[in-house]
């Protein structure tokens, strides 16, 4: 029954890491904008995530009169569930995995794709024009970037000959990290994966579903209290899990010298997470048509080319 133990441990660690990753992002953003960030609650504001959680838990829960109540309440929960469930197949070390499915990569992609349903649901159920526009944007964007994401993730699958994330890490231990190949399809596939994950988790420059300067707050416009908090949390969990998946698929997972594997995995995950947030606090955002164009005209064929490159490498290399 050790998998059950790991499930509980992984979820607990994920939730706490998310809380302090949030703190990390706020400090990072503040430093980038020559501010200080949270300083008041605890040393260096380290208790800020707890204060935020307590605040959100106490907030009044408002159900707009025009909203579709059932879907309105269900949407944030489902968003959080799908965000957390993605991590089930991610290995954090040798055997440190909740569900070692042999279709790990497919599981990750499927749950990443599922995220849009509750987001759209929230937008529709709010019966608010900004929320609905945000929901429609979210779906259109997510489906456009799902295809490049699938193709980019297929590259390590082809190289390792397995969809199990544990096998993919083992392959990288024997050969080298896929992202370290300067040639096709290693590094380009990693970059494509990063780009598509940014879009899937709605991070700037692809955060048009929220786009608070245009759509006020997008799908979460009508949400208050913990339900808003769940959206907020799911967003960070999604980014964190995307980073973990990127680390496992392309950065060699838990492999690394000197330190235990778990440390390496967490380090790589946080590294990618920080990278995503540095991008977020640096760039402006695209417009929807530009976003869709980028995905369909450039990234989809690029992904296909990378997939066939990987296949040719495997066949000729005979590895």
């Amino acid at each position, binding site marked *: 029954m050790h*998998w*059950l133990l790991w*499930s*509980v441990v992984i*979820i607990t660690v994920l939730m706490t890491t998310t809380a302090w990753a949030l703190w990390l992002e706020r400090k990072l953003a503040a430093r980038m904008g020559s501010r200080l960030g949270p300083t008041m609650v605890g040393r260096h504001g380290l208790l800020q995530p707890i204060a935020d959680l307590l605040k959100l*838990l*106490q*907030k*009044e*829960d*408002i159900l*707009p*009169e*025009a909203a579709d109540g059932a879907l309105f309440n269900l949407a944030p*929960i489902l968003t*959080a*569930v799908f965000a957390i*469930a993605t991590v*089930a197949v991610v290995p954090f070390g040798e055997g440190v995995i*909740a*569900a*070692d*499915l042999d279709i790990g990569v*497919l599981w990750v992609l499927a749950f990443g794709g599922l995220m849009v349903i509750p987001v759209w649901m929230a937008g529709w159920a709010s*019966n*608010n*024009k*900004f929320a*609905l526009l945000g929901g*429609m944007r979210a*779906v*259109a964007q997510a*489906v456009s970037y*799902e*295809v490049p994401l*699938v*193709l980019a993730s*297929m590259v390590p*699958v*082809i190289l390792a*000959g*397995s*969809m199990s994330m544990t096998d993919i890490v083992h392959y990288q231990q024997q050969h080298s990290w896929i992202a370290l190949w300067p040639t096709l399809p290693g590094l380009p596939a990693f970059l494509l994966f990063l780009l598509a994950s940014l879009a899937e988790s709605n991070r700037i420059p692809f955060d048009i579903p929220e786009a608070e300067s245009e759509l006020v707050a997008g799908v979460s416009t*009508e949400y208050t*209290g*913990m339900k808003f908090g*769940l959206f907020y949390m799911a967003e960070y969990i999604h980014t964190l899990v995307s980073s973990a998946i990127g680390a496992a698929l392309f950065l060699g997972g838990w492999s690394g010298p000197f330190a235990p594997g778990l440390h390496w995995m967490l380090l790589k995950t946080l590294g990618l997470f920080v990278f995503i947030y540095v991008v977020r606090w640096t760039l402006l955002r695209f417009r929807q*048509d530009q976003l*869709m164009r980028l995905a*369909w*005209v450039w990234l*989809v*064929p690029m992904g*296909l080319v990378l*997939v*066939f490159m*990987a*296949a*040719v490498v495997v*066949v000729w290399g005979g590895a």
Partner: protein
Amino acid sequence: MATASLAAIVFVLISAVVASSLVVAAKLLRVRAKVDSPLKRRTYECGEEPLGPTWIQFHPRYYVVALVFVIFDLEAAFLLPWSLIVRELGMAGVIEVAVFALILMLGWAYAVKKDALKWQ
């Protein structure tokens, strides 16, 4: 039923419990507003009365994007089983799949040429 499948289902159940427990905790801990106002529950539209309905008929371009997505998703679903046995099938397999993908990319080229995915 294999352990991994069971573990996956249980994991989803645990995450559902975690997410809903937060909502339940919020229900228990919430501070009730002293004054209730129906204005609170009014739909937000920048401080004005909402103009016209929200649930309207949307433009078909959204639908077309979803359609194209399903087609490419299907393609990916067909490529996935092959990706596991690239070594085994060798060059012949690569060519077979390449033909499959190329035929589909003809449609992609047509769509790009006709600007169907341009959104404007």
